[in-house]
């Protein structure tokens, strides 16, 4: 039995049902999934500013997970907000969806492209690519030109995604595509079929990596993510 807590680090539950549906379809039979949001903070994460707004509340939810008896946590935003901070405080696996998906993508081809929401969000993604050391394997970051909250418009999303993914392959030479936002959902199989290459949806990739880590009994190194000192901290 694997109990996984999925933190969708925004102050809205509009994505929970779609995420849960996809997770239930792709999880192991012995995995139990709970999805939570944060009750303060931003309703979407578009750039650094929103990330900072989200991080402290996300961290609180992550910290609770160990006490609540979870075996692993997924922080469901491509900006990986609070992922490193949570790893410092916790001993159970903490999986960020960008971290999991770009590591995974690097196994599948020579160079991947990230399909993100807005041009203004690219810089945060670029920073994380450097942190994880995959800037050379990422051939481009292309934006759909759609704000996260407008991704609920399925037909607009589909049209923009088909066009943007095609450009990433034809103009940039990507041989693997990674969706750079957890809310770009339901298009993975169709685009993979059309363009004949692997398309990575970061959320379910993180789910499988989290299950894998729990199965083999691995978690992050406390040498890399040392336990924080016991000092006073106030919000």
């Amino acid at each position, binding site marked *: 039995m694997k109990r996984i807590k999925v933190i969708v680090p925004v102050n809205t539950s509009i994505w929970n049902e779609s995420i849960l549906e996809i997770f239930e379809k792709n999880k192991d039979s012995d995995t139990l999934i709970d999805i939570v949001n944060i009750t303060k903070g931003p309703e979407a994460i578009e750039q650094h500013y929103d990330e900072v707004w989200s991080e402290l509340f996300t961290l609180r939810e992550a910290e609770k997970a160990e006490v609540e008896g979870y075996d692993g946590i997924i922080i469901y935003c491509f900006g990986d907000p609070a992922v490193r901070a949570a790893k410092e405080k916790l001993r159970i696996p903490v999986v960020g969806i960008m971290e999991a998906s770009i*590591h995974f993508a690097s*196994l*599948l081809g020579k160079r991947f492209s990230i399909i993100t929401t807005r041009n203004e969000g690219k810089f945060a993604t670029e920073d994380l690519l450097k942190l994880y050391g995959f800037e050379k394997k990422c051939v481009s970051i292309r934006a759909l030109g759609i704000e996260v909250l407008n991704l609920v418009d399925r037909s607009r999303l589909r049209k923009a995604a088909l066009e943007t993914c095609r450009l990433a392959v034809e103009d940039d030479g990507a041989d693997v595509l990674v969706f750079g936002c957890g809310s770009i959902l339901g298009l993975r199989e169709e685009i993979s079929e059309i363009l004949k290459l692997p398309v990575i949806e970061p959320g379910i990739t993180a789910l499988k990596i989290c299950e894998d880590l729990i199965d083999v009994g691995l978690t992050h190194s406390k040498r890399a*993510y040392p336990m924080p000192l016991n000092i006073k901290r106030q919000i």
Partner: protein
Amino acid sequence: MRRILVINPIADDRWNQADGDYLQSTARKDTIVDIVNIEKGASSIESFYDEAHAVPGVLKVIRENKDRYDGIMINCFADPGLNPAREICEIPVAGPGESAMIVASMLGHRFSIISVLKNVVPMFEMKAAVMGLSKRLASVKYIDVPVLALENNPDTTVESIVEKINEAVEKDSAEVAVLGCTGMLSLYRKVKDKAGIPVVEPAAASLKILETLIDLGISHSKKGLYLTPVFKKITW
């Protein structure tokens, strides 16, 4: 239900039973693991020379069996034949070396590989470089025990591996250790219990990555790196 073929890329069946049992017990409940070795090749792989001898046999097994499986794993840290195997396969092919380094990269900033002989140090440094992980690789260390002698004195071998892990932590700032030989899998539990940092056992890492690929219906890209070869007559 997933059917996985594990290829031991050596001309020796001595590891098949133990490796098969270990991998089956690591696998998800509905995964079936079959294990075979190759007919011709080296009895262990500790150099580019040995690796080169493994590749034709690995590709032969894959050509003859790929239609009956959902995924293939080449069970050696050197990943012999991984790239050509992907060129001729649509189904996912995983290698322990590559998989373990990726898993290790998710568990810390810097990992060290603890392997068998001095010969493999440049091999694995080059593998990390190709994968773009050189900056994450703290060091490759070796215990100076050949693959075929790893289980002669298991307790001593475990001590040597743990000693090298500690050295990697203290001297090279490693945060995660990777066992750099799938022949060490029988020693993994004991090493894990004694090491102060996470230890990645490569065969298990590879199996899990492969199961994940199968579950998500994702395989390697055929657009560039793993383009299907142009057909021609090949003899040997």
